[in-house]
């Protein structure tokens, strides 16, 4: 595999000066667009999740002309809606020692020192404004009896900095952003295009100038031009087929941009969430997350004897292995996600799994119910318990939950600089779709924070600096670049329809997902990754020969939508394996079995791998080029994570 380092391409544009004042100084020096000129600029925002909706609404408020796209029937349904647990902010309302620096530090450490200090610091800094903004919009966060906002500690944090709205934080935050978006739609600044899928990025003279979309109702392909294109299209966990993401979540927009020149960074950094409901059969279409806030009050265990046939409540403490509490006495059940996931996998691999398929571990609330009363537990987790009951038919107030890790979040994504612009000028990437802030592992409650930070408080500033050069620039769609992109999209659609083979898109997706899960999932080895790099192209070959898509392209065709996404997952899955193979170290969610401490913890190699791996696409069938962005740490000292 070739991996030359082309220098000078990756300028992260991190401002000079001390960490604490970089963003303030930078904002002060960014060029502005005169208020009267803003309406002369068109901005395309693809995605209406937290990142996209907040960006589109903010652009509209500023006076830009915005076109916003999503594939669902309404912007309110973006995958962000499903986030349960909460959103972090360094408000320090609890006087428990939190601060911007501590949130920054925890995030860099949680990311296993593979993120950019400057970006993370800015994220922590603007976190406090996010809460103010959301509360003013009417987001009904949980409150204390005194009427002030309540917080909880979440996902390994030792301070209470997580704001939440029962188990529906994502829903409430998204509805807040959606409502702000609706206000702008009503005001005429934003035009919304629901049931539209972006199928290509149009690049002209090296700049992003528009997109090609397919209308998912009529099948029409349309050209949309703008002065800048913002992608906020979410993550790619569905490459594994089974994940906690919504069924439609996909990598297509990001991947098509990648094929047009945008670098894809850290593809192998994926997060496997420790607390999901185990799969129950081969019809399984997705996995359901049980918020990790449950780990605050639930205790994780398996029977010491793998053949223990007793019902869990009949197994006395002495015969239970509370393995996280045993191995990590100071963090116990609150170790970070990757540590919890890995440990669950190893006990199940050892044959100690519970449930009919022996594919889970217990998450037990009996002690908490005894200590706090059922009512308190119901207040905290009522809707999660209900959801668990609906799915499994078991009542978790009585029988311990069964949980197992599942793909959940992807830290990797399109490479962006400090201004959230990709290496393709005019293409900006926000939210889960970019790689920027979480390093090799994301802490709980920080994705919502990042999505809203990007959309409300970063991009509205940084985009002006780019646009300033293009005042009065025309945005035609009758150009060669648009025509060529549209023709390629049309040919791609026709290609799927012409194969008329025997297998469905889902059947390929399942098989691909299994390969990526087995070899590029919770734990990876060079040998396994090499094997996956043989299996994936072979299966892809078959896909292009033997796929069956019913119907035509001029109407609703959900199978056609799936086929496009699966095709991109093949290419992405391959890149993930290459990236994982290149990174001969373990860090965060990327565990290479060859690189572990004697205690079985991820062993980083800071000397060699303290870089962002940004991959350049060189065309189908050609090896991609690796560009390295070195990471420098000035404010934090690199340490081996330890949660003992």
């Amino acid at each position, binding site marked *: 595999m070739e991996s030359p380092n082309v220098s000078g391409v990756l300028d992260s544009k991190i401002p000079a000066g001390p960490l604490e004042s970089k963003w303030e100084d930078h904002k002060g020096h960014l060029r502005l667009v005169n*208020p009267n000129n803003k*309406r002369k600029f068109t901005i395309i925002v693809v995605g209406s999740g937290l990142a996209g909706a907040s960006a589109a609404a*903010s652009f509209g*408020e*500023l*006076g830009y002309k915005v076109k916003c796209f999503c594939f*669902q*029937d*309404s912007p309110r*349904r973006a*995958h962000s*809606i*499903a986030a349960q647990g909460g959103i972090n902010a360094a*408000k320090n309302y609890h006087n428990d020692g939190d601060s911007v620096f501590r949130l920054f530090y925890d995030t860099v450490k949680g990311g296993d020192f593979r993120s950019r200090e400057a970006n993370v610091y800015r994220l922590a800094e603007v976190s406090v*404004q996010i*809460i*103010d*903004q959301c*509360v*003013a*919009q*009417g987001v*009904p966060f949980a*409150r204390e009896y*005194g*009427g002030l*906002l309540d917080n909880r500690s979440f996902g390994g944090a030792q301070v209470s900095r997580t704001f939440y709205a029962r188990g*529906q934080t994502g*829903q409430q935050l998204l509805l807040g952003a*959606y*409502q*702000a978006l*609706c*206000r*702008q*739609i*009503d*005001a*005429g*600044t934003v035009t919304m295009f*629901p049931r539209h899928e972006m199928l290509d990025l149009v690049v002209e003279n090296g700049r992003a100038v528009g997109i090609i979309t397919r209308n998912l*109702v009529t099948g029409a392909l349309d050209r949309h031009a703008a002065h800048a294109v913002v992608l906020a299209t979410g993550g790619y966990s569905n490459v594994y087929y089974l994940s906690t993401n919504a*069924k*439609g979540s996909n990598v297509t927009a990001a991947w098509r941009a990648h094929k047009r020149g945008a670098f894809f960074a850290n593809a192998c950094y994926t997060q496997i969430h420790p607390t999901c409901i185990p799969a129950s*059969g081969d*019809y399984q*279409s*997705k996995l*359901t997350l049980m918020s990790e806030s449950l780990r605050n009050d639930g205790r994780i265990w398996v029977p010491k004897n793998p053949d223990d046939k007793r019902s869990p409540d009949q197994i006395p403490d002495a015969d239970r292995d509370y393995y996280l509490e045993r191995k990590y006495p100071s963090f116990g059940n609150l170790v970070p996600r990757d540590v919890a996931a890995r440990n669950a996998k190893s006990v199940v691999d050892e044959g100690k799994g519970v449930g009919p398929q022996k594919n889970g571990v217990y998450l037990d609330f009996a002690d908490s119910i005894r200590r706090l009363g059922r009512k308190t537990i119901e207040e905290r987790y009522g809707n999660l318990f209900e959801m668990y009951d*609906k*799915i499994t038919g078991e009542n978790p107030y009585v029988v311990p939950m069964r949980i197992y890790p599942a793909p959940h979040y992807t830290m990797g994504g399109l490479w962006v600089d400090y201004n959230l612009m990709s290496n393709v000028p005019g293409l900006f990437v926000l939210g889960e779709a970019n790689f920027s802030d979480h390093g090799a592992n994301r802490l709980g409650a920080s994705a919502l924070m990042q999505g809203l930070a990007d959309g*409300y*408080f970063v991009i*509205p500033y940084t985009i002006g600096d780019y646009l300033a050069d293009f005042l009065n620039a025309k945005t035609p769609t009758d150009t060669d670049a648009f025509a060529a992109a549209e023709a390629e999209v049309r040919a791609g659609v026709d290609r799927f329809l012409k194969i008329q083979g025997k297998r*469905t898109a*889902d059947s390929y997706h399942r098989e691909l997902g299994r390969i990526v899960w087995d070899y590029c999932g919770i734990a990876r080895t060079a040998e396994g990754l090499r094997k996956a790099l043989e299996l994936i192209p072979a299966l892809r070959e078959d896909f292009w020969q033997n796929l*069956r898509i*019913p119907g035509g392209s001029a*109407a*609703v065709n959900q199978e056609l939508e799936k086929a496009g996404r699966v095709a991109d997952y093949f290419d992405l899955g391959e890149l993930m394996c290459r990236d994982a193979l290149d990174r001969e170290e373990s860090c965060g969610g990327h565990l290479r079995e060859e690189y572990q401490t004697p205690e079985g913890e991820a062993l980083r190699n800071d000397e060699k791998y303290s870089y962002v791996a940004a991959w350049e696409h060189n065309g189908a069938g050609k090896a991609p080029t690796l560009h390295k962005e070195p990471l420098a740490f000035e404010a934090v000292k690199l340490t081996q994570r330890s949660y003992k």
Partner: protein
Amino acid sequence: MNLTLHIWRQGGPDQPGRMVRYDVKDVNEHSSFLEMLDVLNQQLIEKGDDPIAFDHDCREGICGSCGFVINGEAHGPLPKTTVCQLHMRHFKSGDTLHLEPWRSRAFPVLKDLMVNRSAFDRIIQAGGYISVSTGSAPEANLTPIPKPLADRAFEAAECIGCGACVAQCPNGAANLFTGAKVAHLNLLPQGQAERETRAVGMVEQMEQEGFGSCSNFAECEAVCPKGISIDNIARMNRDYLKAKLQGVNRLVVVGA
């Protein structure tokens, strides 16, 4: 378990539709209703038939994408459950099920079980927000909100916008959907400034969209997957009447 399904098939918005019978065999009781349809669809595709189109995304009961009528009940027989969270263990082998899309003048069918619910978005656009531009918000804890009030606002805000309320209402009214958003925002101190214009704007938009009028059947509350209370409708009506008496009109919003 084996089931007989009669499913509404309609090729496109302007095409005629009809019920088509499908016999499905060996359904796993732990699968969800949508997973049962997934399996059927895979079989249809393999046979060269057109699979059944239905909206879905999160499959966790929160995005509000899914929804159709099963034997006359929106989202099927289980209370407070969206069809994506309905599992087959609640049916018996030999059952016959009739699946139809939401039926409402304001929700035209796009294909099979898929309808156009954009009318809901337009109702929100008519005032279902608090006007606070990014960056202009005061410090969050400056406005304490008593917990019981915050809880009530939250319970109204839980609406997922699926449209089951409209589908189940004999009149096809959207009052529960609209009332829930009016109540959520009008209960909160932050929402007071636009309280009247919001109620007027949203109610009038709802009427323009062709939804029916509410006769307090309360079928909507019974079928709502989030258990949104019809008290919210009463609150909306109060705010609307009060505003109308004061001569308040819908806010005209202009872009910056």
